[in-house]
């Protein structure tokens, strides 16, 4: 383990989390990378919306989905969540591409499950296989994850399940925390997918541009972005959160430099619903990795 990897490991340990990371410079003459368990299986949580975004883009390319076509989403069928359509009270009609935008910009669970239903798990799987991401497997949407949480915590509904998850007095076995059970990937496959989006290989150049714009519209400042608060740096990304799991994968782009793709997955020892230290550790680990990959070598 080199000095930088040691520092990243320390940053995770100090925040009380287990962490997995992969970072790689996009473009440039040779491949440079930093990894901490980069090929270990990790639970995606809402990071699965990134593969789903790419699958959507490819369906648009294939002409099987019209991005401007309207879709009506009614409250009764919406997946629980804390943002976007998940919290609205009335039926909403919007275009497919705007639903996709909400799914990424505010990690809207209801929007994502509607898109997943339209695209289908099979097509999503084919897309990952086509891109050579054989270890990335989406096994269901958030509604499915919520069902297992309710069962594993022996609670009545999703809200009660999350409350039980945040308790330190019990430590139930949670299948959703197990990469062997839920939707899974590796840090390296997620930076690979970002690299494909940034080099117009994931879909048509037009759709890759759409994907990049949508990823840049993500609002969360507390994870990757917290490591790069400066002017002159843009951070595009997708978070994932589920109880003690906190993730973000994204691209950090300093003006006039090659962008750097970075994927960070964490599992906290503490069960608290909010853990600012763990969020900040994602930014800190990413900063350590990205800074090393910039380091005046451009």
């Amino acid at each position, binding site marked *: 383990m080199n*000095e930088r990897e*040691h520092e990243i490991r320390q940053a995770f340990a100090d*925040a009380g989390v*287990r962490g997995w990371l992969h970072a790689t410079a996009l473009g440039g003459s040779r491949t440079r990378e930093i990894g901490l368990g980069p090929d270990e299986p990790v639970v995606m949580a809402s990071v699965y919306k990134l593969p789903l975004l790419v699958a959507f883009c490819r369906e648009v390319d294939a002409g099987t989905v019209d991005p401007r076509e309207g879709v009506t989403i009614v409250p009764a069928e919406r997946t629980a969540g804390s943002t976007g359509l998940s919290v609205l009270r009335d039926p909403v009609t919007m275009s497919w591409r705007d639903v996709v935008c909400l799914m990424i910009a505010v990690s809207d669970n209801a929007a994502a499950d509607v898109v997943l239903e339209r695209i289908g798990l099979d097509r999503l799987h084919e897309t990952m296989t086509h891109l050579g991401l054989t270890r990335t497997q989406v096994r269901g949407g958030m509604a499915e994850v919520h069902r297992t949480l309710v069962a594993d915590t022996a609670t009545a509904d999703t809200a009660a399940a999350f409350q039980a998850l945040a308790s*330190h007095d*019990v*430590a139930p076995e949670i299948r959703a925390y197990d990469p062997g059970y839920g939707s899974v990937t590796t840090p390296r496959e997620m930076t690979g997918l970002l690299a494909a989006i940034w080099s117009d290989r994931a879909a048509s150049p037009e759709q890759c541009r759409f994907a990049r714009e949508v990823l840049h519209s993500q609002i969360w400042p507390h994870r990757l972005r917290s490591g790069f608060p400066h002017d002159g740096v843009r951070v595009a990304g997708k978070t994932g959160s589920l109880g003690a799991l906190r993730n973000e994968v994204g691209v950090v782009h300093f003006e006039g430099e090659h962008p750097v793709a970075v994927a960070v997955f964490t599992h906290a020892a*503490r*069960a*608290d619903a909010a853990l600012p230290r763990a969020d900040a550790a994602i930014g800190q680990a990413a900063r350590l990795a990205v800074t090393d990959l910039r380091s005046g070598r451009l």
Partner: protein
Amino acid sequence: MDLLRHLEFFVAIAEEEHFGRAAGRLGIAQPPLSQGLQRLERSLGVVLVERSPRGVRLNAAGRDLLPRARALLQDAEDLRRVAATHGAAAASLRVGTVPQLTARAATAVATACQSEAGGLVEMTTASTTELVDAVTAGQLDLAVVIHPALLGALRSGPVVRFETALLVPAAHPAARSGEPVAIRSLRGLRMAIPPRSHGTAAHDLLLDTLDQRGLVAPALSAPDDRAALVLVATGRAFALTADPDLTAPGVQRRAVAGDPLPLRLRVVWRKEAADTAVPDAVLSALRDEAGDGAVAS
């Protein structure tokens, strides 16, 4: 020259970037640390650090040699570990507990292990961080650690909660009545608590919980109940203990008002362990000691 000892100096200086802090961490004075580093540099024939009034930083040679120094120290540690396992081969079961577990409960754990596994049981006391590392490395068969903690790939049982009491300096206003003490009324005192490195997550959780209840208490390092008791008796801090008998002149025991602040413990062991009979026996002993109603499953 003791190369390993001097490499330890070097690594501490590299990580702290400050002679005073490095010396503090090693538990030695600054002059021998500084002399030790110079001896190491002479012996290796290369300067390792840049010294400045603001601190100390590795130079290129130091940066290059640091991972090798760490690797050597790790190897030495592994060698000691393996040697220890040979030395302890007579013991059929090696069990670790945190110092917060009372002597009585630790004894119950040992007895349960002995009747379940048969043969000799070797008990050690160490921090959660050290115990998790030792079980992971195969140095211990199982351990009772504080929850929550980073457990890596270890298996773990349910959480067992032990009731705690506050130890308050007798002269503090909060100790004057016999009533349960609201946490926020302990303002002005520090909290005697094991160092953060003994278990980062549980340490932060406790201080965050105090914060939530209106008390921002700076931590005062006390590795175990004895050290905490001294700090309380001398009026410097308050403490929490799971030991129902712990007290001393100058110390008042008080119940925590409102939600309890239990000591949460878990049994941890390695994934490849063949069966869970011993962890189950330890869990059951802990639950008996914790008493009815204090158990969470």
